[in-house]
């Protein structure tokens, strides 16, 4: 609800922008309703369309409400690019059923449709705009639906890592003492592993599947969150307002949630943003080692892994199979790039040391 009121308020403030957006939106909607096949698709997936509209509203609201954050972002073309990329990917994920309709014979939209079974990839052609990769999996379909997978994997992993990290890091930083010591030694153990190796062992033990990939990455990821939060809490804990709250007899949980977390959250946010890219890369690396998503599942890492044998091209024509790597490679690259750009921007904006300098 808040979003809507904010949006309307901001819309009023930016008449010119709003008008052009409204015209554009109206034209798109009208076009969609007039062209029958499009209309049909829209009507078939009301949730996707609704989700898309919410996203548009949200972005417009975010962008038009004046704030220090957006003002800074506007100044930095790179962060703007990052923001745009991420919004586009989210839109792509939401609209996946419209952009790449699942064949009626398929029981799971995440399984990429195959055209025959032949090994050698075949180049882009009508019906397969990005071509088909090894095993004749449609690259376009895989990339569109893979966006959902990438977002899901990173969100789930971050959620698990944050929950564990918050709990352990919070306890560790707030109470200190032996508990802190013990928790920190546990994080030492996890961090002493090359994270990829630990993830490989976990997936190898639990079996190859996307769920296990998420579990594995979360398992190697949480200690960083725990440490980060602990450090933040340590710096915040000594400050006056926390001492004051303690003196006033505030409960531990209340102090943590009311005073410490809000103040420690920003570096956390920066890290989370940057981590999305890292998670997707780790998942891809697991795929590369043959421990990622099931073959045929809409996942960029899986598609890149299928391209592995074809990257070197055919004899005499090194770029004969360019499309098998370029499309999924570009998807993963742009996605990670978007998050990295945004993360860097957020850090610069939030880093007080860099503020106002230069």
């Amino acid at each position, binding site marked *: 609800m808040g979003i809507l009121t904010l949006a309307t308020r901001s819309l009023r403030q930016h008449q010119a922008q709003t008008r052009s957006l409204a015209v554009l939106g109206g034209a798109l909607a009208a076009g969609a309703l007039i062209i029958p096949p499009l209309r049909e698709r829209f009507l078939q997936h009301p949730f996707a369309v609704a989700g898309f509209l919410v996203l548009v509203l949200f972005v417009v609201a975010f962008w038009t409400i004046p704030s220090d954050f957006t003002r800074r972002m506007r100044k930095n073309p790179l962060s703007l690019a990052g923001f745009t990329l991420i919004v586009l990917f989210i839109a792509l994920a939401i609209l996946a059923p419209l952009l790449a309709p699942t064949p009626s014979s398929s029981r799971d939209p995440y399984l990429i449709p195959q055209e025959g*079974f032949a090994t050698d990839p075949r180049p882009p052609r009508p019906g397969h705009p990005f071509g088909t990769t090894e*095993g004749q999996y449609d690259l376009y379909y895989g990339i569109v639906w893979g966006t959902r997978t990438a977002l899901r994997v990173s969100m789930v992993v971050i959620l698990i890592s944050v929950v564990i990290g918050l709990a352990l890091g919070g306890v560790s930083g707030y109470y200190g003492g032996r508990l802190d010591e013990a928790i920190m030694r546990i994080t030492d153990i996890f961090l002493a592993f090359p994270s990829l190796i630990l993830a490989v062992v976990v997936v190898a033990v639990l079996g190859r599947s996307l769920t296990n990939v998420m579990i594995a990455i979360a398992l190697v990821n949480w200690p960083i969150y725990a440490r980060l939060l602990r450090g933040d809490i340590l710096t915040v804990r000594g400050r006056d307002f926390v001492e004051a709250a303690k003196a006033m007899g505030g409960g531990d949980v209340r102090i943590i949630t009311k005073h410490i977390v809000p103040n420690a959250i920003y570096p956390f946010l920066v890290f989370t943003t940057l981590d999305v890219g890292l998670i997707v890369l780790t998942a891809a690396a697991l795929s590369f080692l043959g421990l990622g998503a099931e073959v045929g599942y809409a996942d960029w890492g899986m598609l890149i892994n299928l391209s*592995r*044998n074809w990257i070197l091209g055919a*004899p005499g024509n090194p770029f004969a199979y360019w499309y098998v790597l370029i499309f999924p490679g570009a998807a993963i690259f742009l996605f990670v790039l978007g998050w990295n750009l945004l993360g860097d921007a957020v850090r610069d904006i939030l880093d007080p040391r860099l503020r106002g300098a230069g």
Partner: protein
Amino acid sequence: MTALKTLMVLALSLALGVTGVAYGQAVKNPDTLVKVKFGDPESLDPAYAYDTSSSEQILWHVYETLVFFNGGSTGQFVPMLATEVPTVANGGISKDGKTYRFKLREGVKFHDGTPMTAEDVKYSLLRFMFMDRDGGPSWILLAPILGEEGTRDEKGVLRTDLFTKADQAIKTSGNTISITLNKPFAPFLSIMAEWSMVVNKKWAIAQGDWNGTAAGLARLNNPKKPEDTALFSKANGTGPFKLVQWDRQSRQTILERNDNYWRKPAALRRVIYRVVEDFGPRRLMLQQGDADIVDVNRTEQSQVENLPGVRVLPDLPQLVTQGIYMNLNVDTTGGNPDVGSGRLDGNGVPVDFFADINVRRGVAQAFDYQTAIRDCYRGYATLGNGPVPKGMFGYNPNGKWYATDPAKAAAAFREARGGQVWNNGFKFTVAFNSGNTTRQCLAQVMKANLEALNPKFKVDVRGVTWAQYLSLYRQKKLPMWIIGWAADFPDADNFASPFMHSSGTYPSAQSYKNPEADKLIEQGRTETDTAKRRAIYFKLQEIAFNDAHTLYFYPVKLTVMRSWVRGWYNNPAFFGEYMYTMSKQ
């Protein structure tokens, strides 16, 4: 800043400096042959090695056998360390078919110069039998000579009585060695052609290996680590090449020419086996001439075709049968997602789904063999009609197999379980070991074909890691799975048993038992009359067709080498290349 510049200049000059050298189509390393493979050997001990990667490096290169295959034939033999191939006619094989006599070649020397004697041969055979590591090859000799599959009792204690028996079964007199079998065993000579590698007894004992007595057996038997055997990475054989080094760090084995070989020394001075797991660098090494022969999967074939200076041999016969297995009694203890609900309600299959012959025949007739062979094998496989692969004794070229016929398949499914299968539909999983694209493709074809019959038929395809695959398969949890079988020695029995005998590797996991097949297989082992023996395997093929518990394919082998490699020839029984005859030009 300056340091950086220097570095860049260094890198650039380095790069430019070396480009000139590497190009050019002259033969690279003309007296050294480099084979680049994707797997390490497990051990170079002839009694321990039981994988192609190990065997291809030592067999007939470092160690030699009593007899050898004649050219590309798997059923005809020529003498190697023996002076003639024993037959009943020349008195080498006794009338009852149980005793084989080999007269040894004079003047054969081991790599350290000591002459080979009958004592060495006996020691080698006994050593092979009594090493008997778990999962090792020792049964190949134990079974025909002693009639036993292993050397340990139920509790894992070594049976010393077996050694006394074996000691009597293998006798030396002068330079003749005679081996008496437990029962007549038709394929014994093909076993001798592959598994009678002769090691140097005196030298081995000096290396701390088995001392040749019953008392020393405890140390020899079932070593815990491959390294525990003295011949793990050292060798002293009679072959045309000497083992210089097996470097496990850089993952390569170096063989050097034996200049005192009993025949003309080999043309190649050195043979090097290197391991490179990734196909990319492997192909590039072939392209640049840094590798002479490389392992290439069928999937990757199109990427080596038309490479200048490279020869692709896509259809060499080999002794491999690939099977798609149906499980007649799936284990569901602790839940089994691969059979869905476990009931015939359209969302699963009952545990004994494939016990119904109509279901199995339905599957066999629904499967599109042509598409599978074209797409999964690039056309380089033939449809099998039973376990025994094409080209081997016992294969029936006129044996019947099912033709792809959706109408007949549908009819069979309609009949199954009184029409319930057809009316309710089913759902089950076809599994393959992930990474094996051929098996994955076969599974997908199966899915497409069965689902096309009836919208209520649902098949899932699932790739699992090799470790999981073994585990699931052994627990009989997979309703349908795909795996291959490569010959231990070139004989029909080595295929009939694992595919059709109720105690064989696959039937025991499929819960398949046909008493008639069991009886025929046991007869086939001891039957020495060729015609009668052939009839037995033809009959077994008929049973395979009628029971349809497994679908068979005979894939052919792909070999890729630089065209400057000369003197190469193929024998389906080879584990790798026979380097003695080869050269580079």
